[in-house]
Every structure is written in structure tokens, then in C-alpha cells.
């Protein structure tokens, strides 16, 4: 990196892009409205429910274009600017279209120490994209994430704001991508406590299909 002082000029977002959600699709169903009413009832003001409703909108439309934000604002009777402010504050709300599957690869702190960047670069190479980009077929987005609270099973990643994949290795990434191409999301994976391995002979939960131990995988060559 040279000349770091010259910050790159960031192009301002187009505030009135053409809508991507067709007018006819832009509504909440009766069931969804009922759900929203339940959320609203749990707070002194309707505003408290805005994060849940934004989540709902994102699950429904894939991301949050201005018209979806407007829909949330109208539903909760909030000013558009306020909802837009919330939507843009949090990293998990997608302001632009992403791939069907979004990999949030943790490269922070403990994951950095345990080869998080090797996993990120492996994914980038494998999918021929840079972190932040989406593959041409629109299937995968790769992003660098901050600590996801699974530092004991580093390196790790999260798939589309959902399941965690712990103790990453190249083989695990290969298998994950193959499975996702078939449309299979990884299942919830429970992480064993080391003390449970000693005292309970493994994981304490009998109701999960997949478990993983904390033992860190052999870390890549670059970490030495």
C-alpha cells in the first residue's frame, strides 16, 4: 500500500435506484403482519420492533433495497430516514444484493492467529473472487468478518447469517461448497466443551446431529 493518506474517493450511493422488488411483491402477508404485531406488543413503542421487521424483510427480499426499507417504515409508522438509519448501522443487514450463500469468514483476533486468512484466501482462490465480491453465477459471496464469538473453534465462518462452520480446513471448505451447490445448508453443529469430553465422554447434548470438538485443526503452512 502506498500513499495511504490519499483516501480513495468513495462513490456516493444512488439514493433513488430503480426498484428491484416488483410493486406487487412488496407487502407483508397476513401471517407476517400478525407476527409483526406480536413483536410490536413487546416494546413500549413500535420502534423497538424495527430490527426484527428489518430481519423479516431481508429474509423475504434477500436484501434491503430502499423500497423494502420504505415498506418497513410504513408498517411500523416510522419515518423512512429513521429506518434507513437503522438498516445502514448494522453490518448484517445487506444494503445490496448478495450471493445466495454469503460466507462471513472470521479473520479477527483468534481466527487470525489460527489461519483465518488462509481460509479466506483459499475461498477467494477457489471461487476466483476477492473478499467482498460475488461469483458471476450469483451463488456465493465471500466477506471478511469480525469476531463471531467462536474463537475456541477458530478458524470459522458463518453461512448467510445462519449456521456456523467451526474448525475450518481446506477439506471442510471443499465439502461445504459442494454441499451448497446441491442446495444443502450445513446443519447446526454443537461445539463440545473440553471439560465435557473428560467428564461426560463427549458432547452433553443428545439432540443435535453434529458436534465438533475444540481441538484446533492442523494450522496451515503460512502460520508455521
Amino acid at each position, binding site marked *: 500500500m502506498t500513499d495511504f493518506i490519499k483516501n480513495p474517493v468513495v462513490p456516493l450511493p444512488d439514493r433513488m435506484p430503480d426498484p428491484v422488488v416488483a410493486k406487487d411483491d412488496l407487502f407483508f402477508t397476513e401471517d407476517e403482519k400478525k407476527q409483526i404485531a406480536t413483536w410490536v406488543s413487546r416494546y413500549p413503542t413500535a420502534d423497538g420492533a424495527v430490527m426484527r421487521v428489518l430481519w423479516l424483510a431481508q429474509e423475504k427480499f434477500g436484501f434491503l433495497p430502499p423500497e423494502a426499507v420504505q415498506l418497513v417504515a410504513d408498517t411500523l409508522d416510522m419515518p423512512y430516514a429513521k429506518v434507513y438509519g437503522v438498516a445502514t448501522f448494522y453490518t448484517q443487514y445487506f444494503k445490496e444484493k448478495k450471493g445466495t450463500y454469503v460466507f462471513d469468514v472470521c479473520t479477527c483476533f483468534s481466527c487470525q492467529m*489460527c489461519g483465518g486468512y488462509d481460509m479466506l484466501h483459499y475461498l477467494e482462490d477457489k471461487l476466483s473472487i476477492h473478499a467482498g465480491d460475488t461469483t458471476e453465477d450469483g451463488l456465493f459471496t465471500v466477506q471478511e468478518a469480525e*469476531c463471531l*464469538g467462536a474463537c*475456541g473453534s477458530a478458524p470459522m465462518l458463518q453461512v448467510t447469517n445462519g449456521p456456523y462452520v467451526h474448525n475450518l480446513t481446506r477439506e471442510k471448505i471443499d465439502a461445504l461448497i459442494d454441499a451448497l451447490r446441491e442446495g444443502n445448508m450445513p446443519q447446526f453443529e454443537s461445539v463440545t466443551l*473440553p471439560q465435557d469430553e473428560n467428564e461426560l465422554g463427549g458432547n*452433553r447434548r443428545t439432540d443435535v446431529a453434529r458436534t465438533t470438538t475444540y481441538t484446533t485443526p492442523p494450522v496451515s503452512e503460512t502460520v508455521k
Partner: protein
Amino acid sequence: MASKAGDWRNYERVLLPPVKDLHRLDVFENHGGYDALRQALTTEKWNPSSVTEEVKKSGLRGRGGAGFPTGLKWTFMPPANPDIPRFICCNADESEPGTFKDRQVMEYNPHRIFEGMILAGYAMTIKTAYLYVRGEYADWITHMERELEKAYAKGYVGKNIMGSDFSMDIVIHKGAGAYICGEESSLMNSLEGKRAYPRIKPPFPAQKGIWNYPTTINNVETFAHVPLILSRGADWFSSIGAPSSPGPVLYGISGHVNRPGVYEYPSGMLISDLIDHVAGGMRGGKKLKAVVPGGSSVPVLRADMIDGVAMDPDSLREAGSMLGTAGMLVMDEDTDMVSFLRRITRFYHHESCGQCTPCREGTGWLENIVTRIDEGEGNMKDLDLLIDLCSQMEGRTVCALADAAAWPVRHTITRFREEFEAKCRPSLVATHVESAAV
């Protein structure tokens, strides 16, 4: 200094005891679950102020990072007034890099959290409690919502709990990915449906909290300790571990050790015991280089600084660091401390909310300058510039994120200065900061 954890090898876990499927309500009930709550609500011995007194007496200190005495915090709430709503909030935002203990409690002992929250609610006369969980924990939110529903169905939460006249609701609030929401006043704004900007304090949450009503915020682990303090007594709790910060602690150990993970042991464990005997020693037989004892914002310790240092606030302060969240990162001899620091500065730059100039600009400059050094284009004087920048940030902002960003920079540079100098372009002018100052 010596271990304050006593006979830790024979310690029996209480927060995450070795019980299969403890997260299920029926199993939890069979192992004394909700007993403390039943005692508190239905026997003469307990009333709201005696519950608070017991927690105060136990010496429990907050487990969210700041270590504030919990019982004392509860007494800051103004006297209950039926016309003024008041809230408690459980902080499950857990985003401090290196911290992953709360998630284990949420997965393996969620009812303990609910029970602790209701007891706290009883002590402070609360009707609604919010459980603010970071959005990334989607799977754990689903898990807890399922368990919470069962607790409602059994009458442990909701109207007239266990037939008493005490009613309280628990609402799980899903965040959406912002480290700053862990800061209590930011969390309150986030709950209210605003951008999560921290607020200027005072007023403190107990005076003006969520929607400007009295509010008390505690960490997940803090609440989870409350039921056993009541059922086993404050004396039992205060006899565990280091007297100045007693009780069981969840140590989250990550990095270059053989068996990373969350371990429950008494407070005041020696750092060296945790690395060598608990977490299975250094990976690959490498030598230890550095330890960050409590999450990314606490000062890093060099290997030669941890002799006899215990994981309690006093011992760590003497050693030149802090307990933080007890999420410990262990680094071996091959670690590049410059790129380690570079990644931390990047984190804080990304997570600054942008309200205060010293933080918004400062975190960016820290990242840019450390990056420049890491890329081999830094000058010796940049090191002094960085330290100076830290002084310009510390204590000059609305919340403590700016301090949290500055501390690692200041201490990593002073404690590993040779490494930073080695990456800088050589200089003919002497720099001012002493190398390896402790």
C-alpha cells in the same frame, strides 16, 4: 503471587455442570432448576431487598468486562413506582474479540439465564426484561426462544410466576451485527429502534435507561450466577477463588494451545496453569510469546510478564493488564506482533460508531499507520506518533471504545517495540519512547 483458585483440579463445575441435556427444561428441573426462584417467590426468607443483599454479600462482579459489583449496581435503581415502567436487560451481545463464553451458557444452560433474570427482576421489581443477543447468534436465538416458550408454558416466566403475585416477561431481542451494541447505552438505543450510538453518561441507565426509564444491564454470565448465590448462599460463592472477585469463571481460551475452549474454574487461576495444565499446553511444543488475558481491548502481556500472575483484577492490574471478559488469547513464538496489532486496529476502525471525532478519525489513523508499518513503509517516528495518538483518544470520548482501541496499540508497541522498529525504515533520529517499558 500465587494461584488464588485453591484446589482447582478438584473443582466441580456449577455453571456448566456435567449433566447431559441440561438445556432441556425437564432435565434442568431435575437438577434443582428454578428452585432458587421458587424459594425466593414463595418463602418468607426472601423479599426483593434480601435478594439484592445476598447478591451484594456474595461479592459477585459483572462478567461483561468492567467488573462492577453486581449487587451494588442493583441498588442504584430508584424506588419502584407503579406508574413508571422499569427494565432489566441481559447483555448477550458478546462481540469482544476473543470472547465466546456467553454463547456456551446460552446453548447449554439457557434456563439458568432466565432464572437469574427473573430473580434480578424480582429484586428490582421489574415487569419486562430484554435479552439482547447479537444477530450472528441466530441459531442460539432460535434455541433459546424454544426453551423460553417451555418456561412460559410451565409458569416460570410470565404472569403470576409460580402462583405468586410477581409477573415478569422476558423478550429476546435480536441484534444485527455491531460490536458497539455491547456498550450498555448503545444497547439501549439499539433496543429502542435507533442507530446504536452510545449516550453520554451521566445520566446512568438506572436513572435514564431504555426509553428514559430506570434500567439495569448485566452480562449473561452475571445473571447466570444469581440462582446459585441464592440457593447455596453468598458465603459459598465468596469462598470460591480470588477474594476480591470471587466465584466461578468461564475462561475462554483460544489461540495457539492444544485444547482451546471454554473452561469453568474458580476465579484467580494462574495464567500459566490455564495454558499448561488446562488448555493442554502450547501447540506443537512452541514457546509462549504473548497472552491477551481478557479480550482484544486489554493490554497484551509478554511471556516474561506472566510469572505468578493470576486471573483476577488485582493481580492483572499489577502485571499491567486487565481481566476484561476472561477471554484469553495465547500466542506462540512465531507470532508477528505487528500484524496482530494491525488486525486489532482494523477491528476498532470498523466498529467505531463515528460519533466522536477522536474515535472516528483516531481509529482510522491507528489502522492506517500500523498498516503502513506492517507493509514496511513506516518510519521510526510513526511509533511515537501512534503513542501520541493514543493519548489524544483515551478518555476523550462518549464511550470506552476509543480507550479500548488505544490500549492495545499503546501496550503492544511499548512491550514489543523491537518488532515494530524492525519493520520500520531505519531512522537517524532517536525516538522518544523507551523500549519495552512495562
